């Protein structure tokens, strides 16, 4: 399936781009992270400490166990600092 992947804040800076479209069969967020990390060093570095990251699937906060069936947009970012 085709997924839109978005990166924000220092995750975006480490990955080196704000978004990309990928083709994947990863069933969960965790599987997607593993797949991306295996690709290139910059991904492995960005995803090296998952506890320091947050993930949203289709603009809703979720966790690494979340399934990707029907997902269109996955975003990775650090803990939020609004307000």
């Amino acid at each position: 399936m085709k997924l839109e992947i978005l990166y924000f804040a220092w995750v975006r800076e480490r990955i080196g781009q704000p978004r990309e479209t990928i083709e994947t069969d990863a069933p969960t967020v965790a599987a997607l992270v593993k797949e991306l990390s295996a690709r290139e060093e910059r991904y492995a570095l960005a995803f090296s400490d998952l506890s320091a990251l947050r993930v949203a699937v289709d603009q809703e906060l979720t966790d690494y166990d979340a399934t990707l069936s029907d997902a269109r947009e996955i975003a990775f970012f650090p803990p939020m600092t609004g307000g």
Partner: protein
Amino acid sequence: MQIRVQSAPFDYGTECAVFCADRQDVGAVVTFCGIVRDDGGDLQHMEIEHYPGMTERALTKIAQQAQDRWELLDCMIIHRFGPLEPGERIMMVATASAHRADAFAAADFLMDYLKSRAPFWKKENRPEGSGWVAAKDSDEAALSRW
């Protein structure tokens, strides 16, 4: 209910005045304004990044939770993104209720949730370099109050 996510400045005083104008059912209005604070005295500017689309969804959800939980006659959130100078207003919330306890609790709740659950990230630029503001454990812990 009003949610605004914008790069343009807003006028805190005017927003406060308009928010509680011409209402006779409101007894209590609480507003909060967040301002770019220059801790070290050397902050050049702050840059706020956000996640367009998700930001509006998250803020709307937080405001709806506040409205479900307290007796609010109105509530408002304005949050800026982009570059901001020290002293500039970053964001504000306002709540209106018949009674003060609801207005206070709802405003406090909105702030706690949008600190840790709305997709904004702050980067500070100083002469020695720039860095992302780290989330505080105390902000995450504050959510357990609700």
